[in-house]
């Protein structure tokens, strides 16, 4: 019965219906599906040469090992040695790229995509974190990174839902330039990762898609009433690994929202060194916003943040200008509490600090002092409020 269910799910996948899917431990067998959504099938040396492995240290070859092949007759065996980080005494995460619009990965428009998937056989002797990014994972805009998944030893059928509304906020889906595959780096005493990739593909949908326009509301930057709001934040500060950066997800648990029916859950993970959280907070992504036209003497930039940890956190909100000028305000939030007081900044104070005419805020950052690995906070409402 279980096998029938699995087969049915696989068939649904073939029909392009999104199915949430985490990495599986059992080998499912070859996928029979239309090649229309095929992005990379790892079938020829020419295809491997069209991929870019220059940012890591690797050996790449074709394999006909049966238990690694899920489509066609070959898979791509990638032995990832990684680039040694001399200072940290470990190996950096490995990245390689598949560029679109070429001889092999021809698809450049992803307007019709509902899911994206790849089969990965992990022959490394250990579990590995793995993620996929559209475009450059180190760019704050024009990129989208899927949540990291754990590749168990053996075959993993990895699939992510392709939320067009969410993704389209940062990326022009008619023009995805390349995919970035990210595999966590090894420790100094670990062996190179050995992964077999096959059947990198998308599932498609017939449903039309029009990029949702954020409804204009001069005074609301994000209140998470719109899909676009969930793509408005990124991690802040250096991260030890793109696979351990904070994850931003939609929260509908009413305990953690103040207005509307959603807020942003931000979860922090331990860094590679095991010495604390990876990242110090979060920040707004670059976006055009007109900060002028308000009565600056009466208008405050304000945020609502819930500290869902068991310890106190101090939030340092800092606004940055294009010229890197800053103004900061601190707010201490007790455990299991909303920020109350100190979570606002008067626009006129910002204007006084910044040089030049007009208010030109480039980014707003939220540094969480006292943050620990595993901590979770909820952000609701980054808005401009007028004092009464």
């Amino acid at each position: 019965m279980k096998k029938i269910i699995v087969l049915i799910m696989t068939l649904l996948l073939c029909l392009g219906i999104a199915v949430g899917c985490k990495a599986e431990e059992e080998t499912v067998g070859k996928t029979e599906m239309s090649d229309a959504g095929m992005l990379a099938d790892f079938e020829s040396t020419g295809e491997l040469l069209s991929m870019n492995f220059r940012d890591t240290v690797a050996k790449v070859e074709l394999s006909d090992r049966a238990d690694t092949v899920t489509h066609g007759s070959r898979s791509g065996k990638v032995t990832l040695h990684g680039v040694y980080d001399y200072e940290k005494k470990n190996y950096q995460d490995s990245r390689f790229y598949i560029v679109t619009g070429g001889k092999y990965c021809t698809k450049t428009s992803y307007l019709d995509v509902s899911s994206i998937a790849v089969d990965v056989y992990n022959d490394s002797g250990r579990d590995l974190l793995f993620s996929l990014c559209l475009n450059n994972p180190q760019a704050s805009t024009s990129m989208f990174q899927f949540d990291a998944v754990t590749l168990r030893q053996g075959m993993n059928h990895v699939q992510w839902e392709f939320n067009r509304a969410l993704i389209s906020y940062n990326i022009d889906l008619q023009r995805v330039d390349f995919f970035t595959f990210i595999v966590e780096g090894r420790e100094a005493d670990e062996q190179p990762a050995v992964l077999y990739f096959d059947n990198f593909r998308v599932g498609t949908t017939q449903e039309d898609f029009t990029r949702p326009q954020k409804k204009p509301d001069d005074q609301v930057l994000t209140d998470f009433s719109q899909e676009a709001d969930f793509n408005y934040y990124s991690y802040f500060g250096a991260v030890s690994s793109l696979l351990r950066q904070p994850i931003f997800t939609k929260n509908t648990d009413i305990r953690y929202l103040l207005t509307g029916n959603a807020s942003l859950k931000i979860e922090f993970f331990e860094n590679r060194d095991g010495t604390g959280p990876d990242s110090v907070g979060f920040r707004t992504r670059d976006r055009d916003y007109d900060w002028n036209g308000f009565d600056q003497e009466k208008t405050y930039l304000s945020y609502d943040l819930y500290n869902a940890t068991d310890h106190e956190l101090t939030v340092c909100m800092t606004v940055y200008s294009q010229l890197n000028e800053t103004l900061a305000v601190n707010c201490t939030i007790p455990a299991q509490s909303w920020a109350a007081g100190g979570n606002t900044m008067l626009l006129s104070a910002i204007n006084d600090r910044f040089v030049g005419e007009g208010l030109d805020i480039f980014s707003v950052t939220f540094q969480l002092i006292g943050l620990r690995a595993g901590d979770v906070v909820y952000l609701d409402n980054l808005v401009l409020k007028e004092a009464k």
Partner: protein
Amino acid sequence: MEKAEFAVKSVVNTVKIMRSDDISGYADASVSVQTAKGETEGAQLIVNATADVNGYEVRVSDLKKGEDIIPASNVTVYVQKYVNVQMGYTQFPSGYYPDALFPIDVVKDHAEDKFAAGDNQGFWLDFAAPSDAEAGVYTGTVTVTMNGTSVEVPVTWEVFDFVFPQATDFKTVYLIWKQWLVDGELDNTVEKYRDYYEFMLDYHVVPYTFPVEAGDVDGFIVELRRYYDRVPCYGIPYITEEPYSIDFDLLEDYLAAIIEAGREDGKNYIDKAYYYFDKIYDEVSEERYPYMRAAIDSTNDREENVVRRFSLTGEEAEAVRGLKHMVPVVNGWQDEFAKYDELIIIPLYNNFVTTANIEMYESLAAEGQEIHSYGAASYWPYGSNLIDDYMITTRDVFWSKYSYGLKGDLYWNVNGYCNFGASLGSGYLQLNDLYNTASHDGVTAGDGYLLYPGASYGSEQPFPSLRLTARRDGIEDYTYFEMLGQEYARLSQEYGVTLDEHTVLDFLNRQIFGTGVSKLNFDGLGEVRREVARLIEAAQSIGLAIEDISLEGSTLRISVLCKSGTALSADGAQVTPSGAAGNGERYIIEKQITGGTVSLIASQGDRSSSVSLLVGKPEETVCAYDAAEDLDTVTVSEVNGSRKEWNEDSRFARSGGSVKAELTGKIFDTDALTRSFTPYISMECGSLQGVDQLSFWVYNPDDALEVSIYAENPQMGQQLVLDRLQLAAESWTEVTIDNLNIVTTDQSLLSRFTVVGLRTDNLIDEGAPFSRTLYVDALVKIAK
């Protein structure tokens, strides 16, 4: 398979034959190659068939000399692969140029042994002489088979009677970009880097770093022990810390490890080490001088730490303190560099093209400043790195390097296997077809790579290019010159007379290169090379050395040193010793020459050695300026105040008379005109067609003066500057024009150039014009 009628032609290994070239004028094939023991030299055969060829084979027999055999396995047969070049960067014609060399078995295994009717198919044969081979002439055959029809080509292989060193002294720094190996090889691990490292050593070019990750000091020492005896130099790796600094703690760890290993092994490992912090001072410019200064100061501090730590004294300590930094520069020597003792300056090829510059670098070298050279996308008339260019200039540039005292060469990337002219956020783009894409940068054909990846053809090794092969051969030629120098140093000790190999080499090399440019002597390079080999043999076997050689008019004068009791003949005529020269004997030969060679045979008992010196044509007087009417053949900038007159004062004439020119500066209405005005002396010289060299003498009675030398087409008013040099103060300077190839390589166009001359910058001092007097005399030429 259709039976193919085909022609097999021999072409010297200094010429590239394009796929569509007409080869009918080349000689029917016979392979003739000369090597030292332990040396590799190439030869080529070009095939053209009347029908499509769908299968071919080229096989070499064993090479035999009596009972001595060099097995066929010592000859590697490559297929020349053609790539379409349409760039126009070098202004050579578009078309299919040969570059990649594929082993013939690889080609056949992949069923690519085919070519179209009427197209050329080139084969390159590398002859590798064993280091223990007997000297002499070996013979054999090459069997060329097209569509089942075979032709036998005779092979003659002369092995010179000296051994080529396992490791040359010529210091190369050729960069393998390890990360980029993956673009062609699907592998950028240390193991693949090692494949490339070993491959390049066979071509006498040394990659910057050993095959080991930067930061792995223990691994570095393992590689140092493995390769030390095979390389003339090696780079100490570094890790960048900030944009323009490095991890100096790690650097000190490397130095300490090298010293420790040296003590354990009883070897002075540090003596071949160098630094190349390319992230700090590659192509250094004024903005980076402070960072370079800081890096050198910090390096010096760490060296002192190591000296103290190991209590080094004397030579050991000086070896550490004497470590140098390799600094490539675009605009040549700068005053800034004189502040340092720690630099090896590496200018681009185009900094060695005028007498003034060459003499400057020779002077710096004589003062102990080590100079190398480096080529990026250089092309004719400079030493070439590109596909659509001459092959000979990739090789004979190493001849000029020896003459100018350059000790090494740097090339920035041998494996640019991506499209580094275009990028996305993922980095440079991939190339669709590495074997049929000439340009990897979107501009030039060939810059950034000298190798081709082997992975697509199942080869662990990369494939070489003709350009890499020409470099190998050029470095081997350079090593011949060094070997002659070593022999002359030994004989200097033995005879107690100073011998300088440059004297005879510069004379012979007049056939090969002029000031800053190759003479494109495609057939002659092999002949001169053979002469140098004979000189080495003669020096080793019988102690013969050329002390001096010169040509004046049609009189050739050679001074030869030999051991006492040597019988010496010149062109069959016995030469009597003119007297003792230290512990040897000196023989003076004076001959009237009409061209060709002078053959010397030296005998001692039953041993003998012979040398045939290519002496070229005699000098012909164009104008001696001994008569007043000769003044009519000279013009000066008279309209703007300069004057000329015939001179009889013997102090200022080589013989008879000379032309006295008083050059005067002038201030014009505009600054632009004033700056552009150059007082000049022009001399009619007749057509330059067929001329190899012109020279004239200039007496400068005043302070040193820098002048430009030009050739002129008076009908078109076209002047081309050929050189810039300094006229020494209060003395005669012989001005030699030997680089007419810079004007044009087309002899019919060259016939329109009938005037040569010199000009100065405008003679203005503190806002006032002044005059300078010069005397010109003795305009002579030498025909090709």
